[in-house]
């Protein structure tokens, strides 16, 4: 099986030689949502960073291939790789509070890159940014474009980052725990928004999270990561019906809402929104007890 993004036998290690990722393989098909689940420290964020070329300096790719849009990124020069990433992929970061440059207005943070890197005209970039802000349900986009990040709420900033990620119509978006840093009530809306934008734009999405519940709602397939190793890669409903690896089964059993496998049989595309809302509602009820 090979996808739009195909990571093959990727090994990443510290300078001391201690491996962080051990021969990891995973595939994200075009237009599909692939979940990447694991505990914190399992290395799931490092896969996203390895693909995007933003690994911390202390980490190095030892071996493996990262195919994106038919090109092995690891064979490219740093400059060519940057260009390839910039043109085909985008990131929705984890913490919207630190992911916008505090000294710049919102507008340029969305448009500059379209102009600088992709060669758009300023007018086009401006129009595109307004259109996208509208699409992510931001009221009064003109005013928001002129604001500084600190003037906006966390949810607003995450919407802006989502808009910015979709701005150049990338073929692949990596969402790195995009709701973890947000309030529970806002999480629901952001999750709905990501799903909505993904299906509208038909973008392949690698959804990195520790929350199996979230994965079951938005993903078509998933990989389970443990201690830098992929234990299982599966289609969604097959995974919930018959988890192959004992760790997967344990993980599934530990996710309270999904102990009943029938729930996981809900078809994804149509019922995502209701399901997410339901999930949050249940979460809220649990939290209020």
């Amino acid at each position, binding site marked *: 099986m090979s996808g739009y993004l195909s990571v093959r036998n990727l090994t990443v290690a510290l*300078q001391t030689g201690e491996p962080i990722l051990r021969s990891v393989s995973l595939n994200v098909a075009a237009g599909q949502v692939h979940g990447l689940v694991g505990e914190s420290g399992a290395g799931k964020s490092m896969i996203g960073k390895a693909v995007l070329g933003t690994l911390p300096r202390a980490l190095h790719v030892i071996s493996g291939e990262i195919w994106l849009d038919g090109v092995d990124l690891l064979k490219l020069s740093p400059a060519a790789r940057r260009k390839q990433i910039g043109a085909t992929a985008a990131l929705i970061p984890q913490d919207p509070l630190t992911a916008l440059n505090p000294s710049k207005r919102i507008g340029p943070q969305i448009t500059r890159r379209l102009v600088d890197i992709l060669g758009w005209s300023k007018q086009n970039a401006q129009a595109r940014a307004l259109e996208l802000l509208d699409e992510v349900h931001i009221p009064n986009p003109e005013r928001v474009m002129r604001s500084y990040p600190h003037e906006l709420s966390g949810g607003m900033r995450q919407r802006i980052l989502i808009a910015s990620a979709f701005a150049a119509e990338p073929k692949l978006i990596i969402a790195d725990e995009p709701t973890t840093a947000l309030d529970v009530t806002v999480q629901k809306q952001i999750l709905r928004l990501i799903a909505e934008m993904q299906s509208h734009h038909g973008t392949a999405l690698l959804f990195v999270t520790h929350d199996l519940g979230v994965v079951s709602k938005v993903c078509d397939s998933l990989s389970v990561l443990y201690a830098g190793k992929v234990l299982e890669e599966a289609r969604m409903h097959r995974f919930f019906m018959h988890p192959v690896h004992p760790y997967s089964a344990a993980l599934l059993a530990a996710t309270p809402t999904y102990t009943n496998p029938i729930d996981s049989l809900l078809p994804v595309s149509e019922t995502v929104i209701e399901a997410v809302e339901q999930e949050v509602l249940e979460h809220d009820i649990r939290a209020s007890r």
Partner: protein
Amino acid sequence: MRDARGNIRRPIGARLWLSGGWLTLLALAAICAPLIAPKDPLMQDLFLGRMPPFWMEGAEPGYLLGTDSLGRDVLSRILYGARLALVVALVAGTLTCVAGATLGLVSGFYRGWPDRIISRFVDIWMAFPPVLFAILLIAVLGPGLLSIIIAIVIIDWTRFARVIRAEAMSQGAMDYVASAQVAGRTRFGTMLAEILPNVLPTIVALLTLEMGIAVIVEAILSFVNLSISTDSPTWGGMISEGRTSVHQAWWVLVFPLITLFLTVLSFSQLGEGLKDRFDPVLR
């Protein structure tokens, strides 16, 4: 070696040894100056004026580093000059440290009116150009070793007070201080038992730094002829003389300058090295 963020961590041993070694050597030279100095540092011989150091043509045997315009031996004057420099460094440095650190601790830990008064004085002090202040004080107090020491303490206590105040303030806000007080320690007891040990690495680093600064202040005051009487050799006085005859006899300037340079560098490197070694967080 790198730490978690990829910062290079240099071994701290080398600079501690080098700077400590130089300062020990200097201290020995100062103590033993009468025994090891080849000449009387005050002896003038106008026939032997501006003799070059030993490796150059025309050097006079016995005058290793040459002579100044009055025919005095440069090496012997450097050795005797080390006495004054080190006395100023130790005494003025320590007194400044005690005065400034105490005021800083009180200001930062007790807050309230002591802090307001001390901080107001620090503000006023910060508005003085320090060198001018020093020169003014020496003019008032009259030249002499004691005047230099008093002047340094009066001028530089703020350096300690500012830094220690900030440190004591951030330490005082931490939970362990509150729990010490809950456990029944007095405020003064808390300051000595909880705050002081935590700011001590900073105090030690500042102290060695201050010793270097004291040496420089003495040199600057000698340079403008306001240090102590002209019959004691001082590095600053030698530099002042060397500066005027630099085109005719560079060695009169170069040797005391190198000595001063290494001494000041050693004091500050020693301070940094000690701070790294004793800082409980970094260690």
